[in-house]
């Protein structure tokens, strides 16, 4: 039983770390601000979710797991809201997204 728990923890932590790395890579390498917001959002959901799940499996049923669940709830509640606010604020202030063609440029309205 402990081996199964350890194995699932391993899987969750590795997967979560992978998503965290991909997320930061996206923030670093994507060409446009709005696409970077997408990248950052990956951490809040998949990255945090899997890492915290892996930790919770190690902790068993205890106060620690309850706190981890609370942290996850807060992150899931505040992460997408922050992404929304980031995108909206930039758009309102005039930052235009990198568009691919003349057609898109013409149809984008403020």
């Amino acid at each position, binding site marked *: 039983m402990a081996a199964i728990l350890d194995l699932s923890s391993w899987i969750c932590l590795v997967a979560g770390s992978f998503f965290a790395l991909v997320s930061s890579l996206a923030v670093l390498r994507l060409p446009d601000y709005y696409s*970077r917001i997408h990248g950052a959002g990956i951490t809040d959901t998949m990255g945090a979710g899997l890492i915290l799940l892996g930790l919770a499996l190690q902790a068993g049923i205890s106060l620690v797991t309850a706190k981890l669940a609370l942290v996850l709830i807060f992150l899931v509640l505040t992460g997408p809201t922050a992404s929304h606010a980031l995108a909206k604020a930039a758009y309102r202030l005039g930052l235009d997204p990198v568009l691919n063609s003349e057609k898109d440029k013409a149809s984008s309205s403020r």
Partner: protein
Amino acid sequence: MMFAAAMAAILTSMAMLLVRAVQGPTVFDRILSVNAFGTKTVLLIAVLGFLTGRPAFLDLALVYALMNFISTIAVLKFTRVGSLAGGQQLPADAQALQGSEAPPETQVAES
């Protein structure tokens, strides 16, 4: 062992976010990096707690999750409205802000 691997991944992603924060041409890139950095810090604290055998320090992670959000909202409100009072945009603030970031241009990407 698994915690060390997770820790390494988190530290690496923090480094990448730092580069973006220093580089980010517009001011919003920096805000984004700080916000993402905050989330990574929350994860770092959680994993660190397990790594050092003291998982009871998760209260700290909770506080960070909250503070990160509040400061991001404050910064965004500042940039949008120019003041934190919820009032009209002050012309001086808006000018100072617009002048301080690279002028936004629509770029047509080569496909």
